[in-house]
């Protein structure tokens, strides 16, 4: 499966061992990353159970259309990332490179859309802190705190992902056995998909609360 050109680091005795250690390490990292979101998610759970009405009001202040569009962008980027990993594995470096560029472009598009949303929310005094709108029901400010923390942390992860994609795309211009190997692209893919997974859950929790009325 793995390309024959991959260098073996001195601590490993075989290619398979090295590849599996990398994949497994990436998954352990992802499990750890998931727990990084845990306090925010539990904070959200606390807020939803204690201030359901305020959460619904607050959620209706988020931008449904942009949020949904962004979800579609991110899902598509994951799809392209899966294609890129497949191409890199098959040692089709030029195809993998362009796919990675496309992934990064979608990532940037996501951040731009997110930025537009943030801007609108700043304008509407929805950014928590001293400037938060007065007369908001109790709990609403915390909803927006968690909203900005969750989406901000997600955006931070995405930014790292975009940089990794671009670095790899640059590396893929060179022929084998230059970095990155097919496995490296695969690892970047795992990370990218994880960032996507987080968003998949953020979408209903942030944008879809109380849309039907109330």
């Amino acid at each position, binding site marked *: 499966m793995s390309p024959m050109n991959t260098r073996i680091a001195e601590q490993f005795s075989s290619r398979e061992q090295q590849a599996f*250690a990398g994949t497994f390490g990436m998954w352990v990292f992802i499990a750890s990353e998931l727990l990084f979101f845990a306090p925010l998610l539990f904070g959200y759970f606390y807020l939803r159970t204690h201030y359901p009405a305020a959460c619904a009001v607050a959620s209706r202040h988020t931008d449904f259309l942009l949020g949904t569009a962004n979800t579609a962008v991110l899902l598509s980027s994951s799809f392209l990332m899966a294609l890129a990993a497949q191409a890199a594995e098959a040692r089709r470096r030029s195809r993998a490179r362009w796919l990675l560029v496309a992934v990064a472009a979608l990532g940037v598009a996501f951040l731009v859309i997110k930025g537009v949303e943030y801007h609108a929310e700043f304008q509407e005094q929805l950014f928590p802190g001293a400037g938060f709108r007065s007369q908001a029901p109790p709990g609403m400010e*915390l909803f927006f705190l968690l909203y900005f923390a969750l989406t901000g942390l997600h955006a931070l992860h995405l930014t790292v992902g975009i940089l990794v994609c671009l670095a790899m795309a640059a590396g893929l211009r060179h022929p084998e056995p230059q970095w990155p190997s097919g496995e490296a692209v695969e690892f970047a893919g795992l990370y990218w998909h994880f960032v996507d997974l987080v968003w998949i859950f953020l979408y209903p929790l942030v944008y879809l609360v109380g849309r039907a009325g109330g």
Partner: protein
Amino acid sequence: MTSAQSDLELEEKGTRAGTSYLAEGYTLRSWLTTRDHKRIALLYAVSITLFFFLGGIAAALIRLELATPQGDLVSADTYNKLFTAHGVIMVWLFLIPSIPSVLGNFLMPLMIGARDLAFPRLNLASWYLYLAGGAIVLWALLAGGVDTGWTFYTPFSTMFSNSHVVLALTGVLVVGFSSILTGLNFIVTVHTMRAPGMGWFRLPLFVWANYATSLILVLATPVLAMTLVLVAIERMFQVGIFDPALGGDPLLFQHLFWFYSHPAVYIMVLPAMGVASEIIPCFARRPVFGYRFMAYAILAIAVIGFLVWGHHMFVSGQSVYAGMVFSLLSFMVAVPSAIKVFNWTATLYKGRISFGAPMLYALGFVGLFTVGGLTGLFLAALALDVHLSDTYFVVAHFHYIMVGGSVMAYLGGIHFWWPKVTGRMYSEAWGRLAAVVIFAGFNLTFFPQYLLGYAGMPRRYHSYPEEFQLLHVLSSAGAVTLAVGYLLPLGYLAWSLRYGRAAPANPWQATGLEWQTASPPPVHNFAQPPVVARGPYAYHTQ
């Protein structure tokens, strides 16, 4: 094959394997850019020793202050900063990295027959992260200190403390990432790098213990990291989910904090159990009793340890029902701990016991851990905890586990593997003396604190009612003894580096793979990749 012959052979193998890791390079650069797990372990050893003595100085000042009830040595604020510094340094900069990052780093690859950890560069990165975090914490302390206690309880830490909380939080956060990377490295290494024939039930218990510890490091530390970020945000921008004025809940912080910080206790004590499980069979010259049960008990402690954090919150305003659930689970986690103590004791039965310094430390560990563990039952019993929580009883209890347990085992491990790490023998007589002094000093320091706690002395008190003075003076006297005990190894171990007798490959006639290579080990650990054909602890009393 007699041991002398095998030693000779091993020496030969060692020379054939190439230069020792210590001789690989002598420049500072060769150390600071190394990816060799053994060298990184030494980098950790030096840095955590530094922090241990820093935290120790804070402890010494605390004990000195408490010798009189009036609180006349330092001001109340200084006292609060001292115990915070002591807690933060000892927990995050010494205890959590101590055994895993020093002994674990050095020994895990050797014990499973690997050339290095799976990700050597990551390993070095985690040391640098540790150093960066430590530096930030030091900066916070030098800039004026932190007075929240190592627990950073909100809303005190977010709204009322006038000290360098955010800086300290940042330091702890960075050290947390270092822990996560170390844990990740260990998990992947144990899963993928074991030598041929090294099945899971042939792993030394030290490896099991560090593996279980790594699970906690990887799964619990990120929760702490994000919680600290939330505290920092709340402190800087006055918005946070722990703020009751906005509809938040201060107890939410406690849940999230203890979700990490209780398992963190097992991060400190599980590797210590691993060390004891190596030393005791070796010096009793017989296999460990109930190896599989020991391994399962380690995993059980790691898993159940995740379920008991609420016992720090029995009087916090948590619901009575949640208290009952957490209390029950806390009693459950005591079962595997008890199993381990019984098994160590049974390992002595029909042994051929000699009392080298490592063994004295290990026996001291078992004794002190037993006392610490049993007094934990008092705190797990709900109604009793209402009286005892936040008193000196708690202080005594966790010092028995963390200092009596972990530090004792850490020192035992340092002595046990010293010949392997440095290639030198330390002075056995001094080693034994230090072990006895530390054991005595420890008990004198902390046993009176149990009595103080039951009598109602609250913790973190800068001054106290006069009737508690006698026990406080005893405790302070013990602290002096303990300080002497901790300084002794610093002296004779350093002395041995230059004047110590050269160590053979296997001075204790131990069976682990790490003893099958030269002392100090060659750069790539083994001359030939070892093949394992039997379980650990194949000792024979005859």
